[in-house]
């Protein structure tokens, strides 16, 4: 009897558990990216999937687009499978592009589908199309479909560190931030641009989402400052206009390292957000014959750089506070961490509080080096 039980247990181990979904790779189609639009007139979602396709010759990959409509996203996806005849595989989907009108109530079911579905990765990138519709991004780029737009966007987003004009947000973080009361999520925006006669997708700027509604956008320079404040900036260049010995000069500085600390402090009854920025720069380019590396000039350069950064930051913070009224910097989370008592009081009115929140920005710039040459190049007449 004991033996019988043992055998039954072993058999159930095999039958009732494990992976059952045997399917060969060539029997499935890999979806590289999805664009989701909303058809106002018919009240339907339009799902455009970019599917990887082997090009003629069997050596390179291109893509094919499939569009389908449905009451819900899931419904539309089912429809795509029917059109494809093969199983669609979402495990390697890199990007989800949303059109601007797929926000608010229309956004929630999409997020639900992404996080609920077993095949979608949690780190799929979510982007907002800055064109009229989302499917334009697929349809109007690489028009002979010999490149995969989604993979192109994926590569761009992974290179954020070197470009810093957008902030890539994976689905898990976006969904996580949406839940959070003390912060508003942002999403990078993508447009169709032209490069060497080929239309390519270009990611630039950041869209600000508040309560799943699109409330505003940041342009490229604002996005960089935004990244600076939230301590996500890892590189990039900054051009500073300065004046050394009464001669105006433009110096391009290269950011080596940056550390931003946001700290809420109490001043009387009010909360002041203290932003301490510690940046290491190297001199990348000097446009002029003035020696800025010499000690005095360096002091001037340092002072001017700090002022420049501070000015830009204040502008961005003010714009976000006044125009968009959404806490994309996560100040609320910081207050919640540091002053939980205070947070409980202000939480219900956080939007109002945020609007008039005072900030104090301290910038400390270190100029670490001047690359390979000490002297500026002087042209003798």
């Amino acid at each position, binding site marked *: 009897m004991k033996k019988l039980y043992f055998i039954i247990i072993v058999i159930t181990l095999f039958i009732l558990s494990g*992976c059952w979904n045997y*399917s060969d*790779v060539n029997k499935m189609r*890999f979806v590289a990216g999805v664009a989701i639009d909303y058809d106002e007139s018919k009240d339907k979602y339009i799902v455009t999937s970019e599917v990887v396709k082997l090009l003629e010759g069997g050596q390179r*990959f291109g893509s094919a687009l499939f569009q389908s409509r449905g009451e819900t996203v899931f419904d539309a996806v089912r429809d795509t499978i029917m059109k494809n005849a093969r199983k669609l595989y979402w495990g*390697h989907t890199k990007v989800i592009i949303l059109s601007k009108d797929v926000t608010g109530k229309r956004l929630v079911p999409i997020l639900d589908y992404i996080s609920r579905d077993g095949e979608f990765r949690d780190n799929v990138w979510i982007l907002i199309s800055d064109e009229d519709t989302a499917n334009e991004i697929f349809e109007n780029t690489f028009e002979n479909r010999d490149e995969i737009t989604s993979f192109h966007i994926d590569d761009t987003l992974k290179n954020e560190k070197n470009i810093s004009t957008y902030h890539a947000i994976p689905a898990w973080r976006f969904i996580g931030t949406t839940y959070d009361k003390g912060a508003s999520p942002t999403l990078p925006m993508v447009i169709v641009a032209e490069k060497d006669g080929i239309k390519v997708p270009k990611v630039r700027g950041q869209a600000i989402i508040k309560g799943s509604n699109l409330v505003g956008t940041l342009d490229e320079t604002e996005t960089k400052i935004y990244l600076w404040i939230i301590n996500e900036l890892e590189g990039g260049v900054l051009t500073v206009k300065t004046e050394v010995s009464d001669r105006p000069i433009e110096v391009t500085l290269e950011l080596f390292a940056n550390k931003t600390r946001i700290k809420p402090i109490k001043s009387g009854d009010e909360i002041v957000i203290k932003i301490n920025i510690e940046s290491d720069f190297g001199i990348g380019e000097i446009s002029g014959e003035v020696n800025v590396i010499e000690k005095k000039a360096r002091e001037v350069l340092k002072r001017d750089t700090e002022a420049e950064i501070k000015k830009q930051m204040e502008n961005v913070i003010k714009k976000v506070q006044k125009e968009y009224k959404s806490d994309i910097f996560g100040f609320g989370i910081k207050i919640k961490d540091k002053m939980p008592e205070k947070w409980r009081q202000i939480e219900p009115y956080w939007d109002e509080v945020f609007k008039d929140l005072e900030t104090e920005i301290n910038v400390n710039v270190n100029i670490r080096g001047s690359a390979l040459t000490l002297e500026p190049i002087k042209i003798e007449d």
Partner: protein
Amino acid sequence: MFRIIRDKILGKHRKKAVVTAEDWKLVKNLDENIKLFREIFNNDDTIRFREFETKDSSPVKCCLVFIDGMVNKEIVNENIIKPIVNFSLKDSNINRKAIDIFKDKIIISSAVKEKKDVYELLSSCLYGDAILLLDGFDSALLLDCKGWNTRAIEEPSSETIVRGPKEGFNEAIMTNLTLIRRKIRNTDLKFRFRQLGTCTKTKICICYIEGLASQEIITEVNRRLDDIEIDAVLESGYIEELIKDSPLSPFTTIGNTERPDIVAANLLEGRVALIIDGTPHVLTLPHLFIEYFQANEDYYHGFIYASINRIIRIFAFFLSTSVPAIYVALTTFHQEMIPTPLLLSISAAREGVPFPTIVEALFMLLAFEILRETGIRLPKPAGSTISFVGALILGQSAVEARFVSAPIVIVTALTGISNFLVPQMIGALIVVRLIFLLLSAFLGLYGYIFGVIGLFIHLMSMRSFGIPYMLNIGSLDMQDIKDTAIRVPWWIMYLRPKLIGDNNKVRQTNDGLYEKR
């Protein structure tokens, strides 16, 4: 269980009346004795009866019985027949029995024995000794004059090395014993003979170092050998299969080698060697799992190089058992675990291939095994044809014709090559690989992990002559792992392996077993 089955089968076939051995006896008459031997060797034309007599006027008649081809004719002529024919008993004036005079004074041979038992005489005669019958005696002299041809001592083709002694065993047991003795010049090195095979009467030698080898293991070996009932022992594999632990396991619990240096090293660690006449493959026991990965060269090269090689061998074991299984699991169940570009190229390579991945994998592995087996079986001149056909047809044309996909060819090749890094284990590897592959085809990585767990439970539960098969694998003690995945330098290997060499633990010492004497 197997004993019951065996008895059932044997019960039907065993003849009730065993042939009763005839009561052969020598008498004091030479002619009668010759007649007896002629009767025994009836219908055997290789047997020679050479009759001659001494120089005396009333000579002693003798007859030398031997088998043509088994004896050294020069010894027979020069050292046996010539002295006897030239000898005169009367001249020597010795008052002793003629047979003693023959034994002590006339015959020039390193081993002369006086025997009465016909069976003993016969078995020695069949092994190349000569029987000298004398008129008037009911006993005979057994003269050692073995002289058959053996293969020279060559480098074993199954275990080639770069550095180290190149000599290997051959088929003659005495040559093999001398090869071992030459490595360990010590009186504690013991050789105990016994005989196995009711028909072949094969000589078997149990070899060990007294004071080092565990007495229990020696007793156990003898006990198991006692239990063997078999008509013939033509190779050490017979013995291995008959006495090994876990008889159904694909893994072997008894090692075999063709190299005397390996046998000597094993003996010095306290192991026991079984040398079987007629085969160059010597058995060593107990045999642990890790020994699959140890090569004799590891101990001759520098320890760093040796350790690297050993880790590579262990890695090859992993590759050889798991690559097809993991490939099938990943491509058919866990596509999300493959990096996107790789997945795309796999799917492109599989485009148009008619079979599912698992069928492809099984087919390619079968093809590889066929190639491997033909490579061994084939006469040498045809060998290159096979590798050519195998590489070209299976490798290239099959892919071009889209019968199989290129990745599976790579997987098979990798598996196959890794196979040969642990050559002793090939048989076990095939079984393990197939089980892993089928499990992962049904259940994905989940099934593969099932297989791995199963394999480890199996290995961990095995023993070889009382020693745990996976001894030291889980240990953290430096002295335990000194000779496992890495080979530490000789100056750290103070101790002999645990449990096997427990009788005299210390390997490197000034007052050790051998220095005292």
